């Protein structure tokens, strides 16, 4: 890890990417690309939140879509019930966050005592429950057909919405980065590494897992709210297993246990989906682009189990250690001292 400085290479790259993204909508002339990038950002937020569970705490959840769905429905319902103002939208984000926080607290408290695979199954069941509620509670959700609603007027400008989502992404990234590098985040990583040992150090691991689940849920709800706005439409698909699987794939392909990984993963998957399905006009085989996607996924898991970012990071570390090798003889001096103390 080492000491982190504000002008480190990492932060400089971070800044360059941000600046590039700020100019992107002005450079890219097509609206489609701006919308696509907005979609990438929204799913980046979702995938980052999933990584808090999978990559940092080591919890495999199959129910992440329920938090995303709750956020999406809260925003859609509040905006269609009341005015389509910015105020209502911001309130809906907060209401969605509080509601998911509450739900993930309850679900976490009930389920996180279980061993990993039982927990995964139970989250699947609970998110299925939410899906059924969304389908059957027709007076509010209009069931499977869903409903359209009017987004705040400001968001009609796609470029403004792009910036709004970008700001959300950056804020979510910074908050989560601080979260995982805080003392609490370190305990989460310890839980992932060896839960029994963490307990014997005197940490109540259940509390930490519940906290991780709440944070992941709240952030997922934010991305759900933004997703609903981007479509101006919501139906039960926001609660479906596909959303959870997307988050899972993005996290694994990008790199588990890093926050940049999910962003890269979401970029790769969204762009690939877009262009692969676009190819279908020329080559009919790409109607089934998802087959290629499945193959890509299998290859990544076999050859790059650490994901794109993880693999690059390991390569970078070995390169760095090779570069600093000539200075190593110095370090062997303490070893001699050890021996002397023995004798």
């Amino acid at each position, binding site marked *: 890890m080492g000491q982190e400085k504000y002008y480190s290479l990492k932060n400089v790259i971070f800044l360059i990417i941000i600046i590039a993204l700020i100019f992107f909508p002005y450079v890219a002339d097509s609206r489609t690309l701006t919308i696509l990038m907005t979609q990438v950002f929204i799913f980046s937020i979702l995938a980052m939140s999933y990584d808090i569970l999978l990559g940092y705490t080591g919890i495999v959840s199959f129910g992440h879509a329920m938090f995303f769905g709750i956020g999406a429905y809260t925003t859609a319902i509040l905006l269609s019930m009341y005015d389509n103002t910015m105020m209502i939208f911001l309130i809906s984000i907060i209401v969605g966050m509080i509601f998911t926080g509450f739900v993930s607290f309850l679900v976490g408290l009930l389920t996180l005592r279980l061993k990993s695979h039982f927990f995964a199954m139970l989250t699947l069941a609970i998110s299925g429950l939410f899906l059924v509620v969304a389908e059957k509670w027709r007076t509010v959700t209009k069931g499977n057909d869903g409903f359209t609603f009017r987004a705040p007027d400001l968001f009609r400008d796609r470029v403004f919405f792009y910036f709004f989502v970008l700001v959300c992404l950056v804020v979510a990234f910074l908050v989560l980065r601080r979260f995982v590098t*805080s003392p609490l985040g*370190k305990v989460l990583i*310890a839980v992932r590494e060896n839960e029994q040992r963490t307990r014997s150090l005197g940490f*109540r691991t259940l509390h930490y897992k519940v906290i991780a689940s709440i944070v992941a849920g709240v952030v997922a709800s934010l991305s759900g709210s933004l997703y609903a706005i981007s479509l101006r439409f919501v139906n039960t698909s926001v609660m479906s297993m596909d959303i959870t699987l997307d988050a899972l794939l993005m996290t694994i392909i990008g790199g588990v246990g890093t926050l940049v990984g999910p962003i890269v993963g979401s970029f790769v998957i969204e762009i690939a989906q877009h262009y692969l399905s676009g190819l279908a006009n020329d080559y009919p085989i790409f109607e089934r682009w998802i087959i290629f996607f499945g193959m890509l996924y299998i290859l990544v898991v076999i050859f790059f189990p650490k994901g794109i970012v993880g693999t690059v990071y390991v390569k970078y570390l070995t390169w760095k250690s090779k570069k600093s090798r000539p200075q190593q003889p110095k370090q062997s001096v303490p070893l001699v001292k050890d021996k002397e103390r023995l004798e």
Partner: protein
Amino acid sequence: MEPIIRTENLSIQFGGHRAVDGVNFKMQAKHFKSIIGPNGAGKTTFFNLLSGELKPTEGEIFLRGKSLASDSSIERTRKGLGRSFQITNVFPNLTVLENVRLAVQSREKVRFNFIKHYLQYKAITNEAVEKLEQVLLGNKVNAVASQLSHGEKRKLEIAMLLALNTEILLLDEPTAGMSLEEVPTILEVIRSIKEQGDKTILLIEHKMDMILDLSDSIMVLFNGKLLADGTPSEIMDNETVQNAYLGGLYDEQLIKT
């Protein structure tokens, strides 16, 4: 004087096998006691019962006169009962420093802070480094734990236990599987802890010279039962012990040679 830790008829049954069978043991504060016994005598099981990893089928454990029956391993650690593990049990993908830092963090009760960066807790880092130097791992601070040699992992175990700074230390075979050159280091580390004089230490070991060197008293477990408990010289002279344990070992050696 009230013993700091005491067990009453402590037993655990796995199926038809009584791994620990009616052990009554007590220990004074700041005392150094070793547990010996052949493999399968129930030594580690006894530790697991003390540290709360296992629940006893019968009997109770008292810490400073208070029953620990309802306390999990988490509470017992917080009440001052720290342990090291026989099978090395560290956080494999974290650096050595981070392993120890987690232990210091737990003791300092820096548990739920999610606003500050962990590097802002300089005192915690410094103390972790200090503990690592105490177990002679000062030159491995930034190594990843899984890449340490076996002996170094054992030292890391001890550093984590020291960082918890519990009043009672349960050391489960700190030299298990170590090469002969490494044993003296561990011996040195344990001796230095003992000489600080503020810890109650319970040690499981097989190396008799080390035990005789360090212990104030020795207890012998055999088939889950407490066979004897006394000063080193008493134990060495005890005939039952010689027959059951030491004798048995020598016989085996005779057969081999």
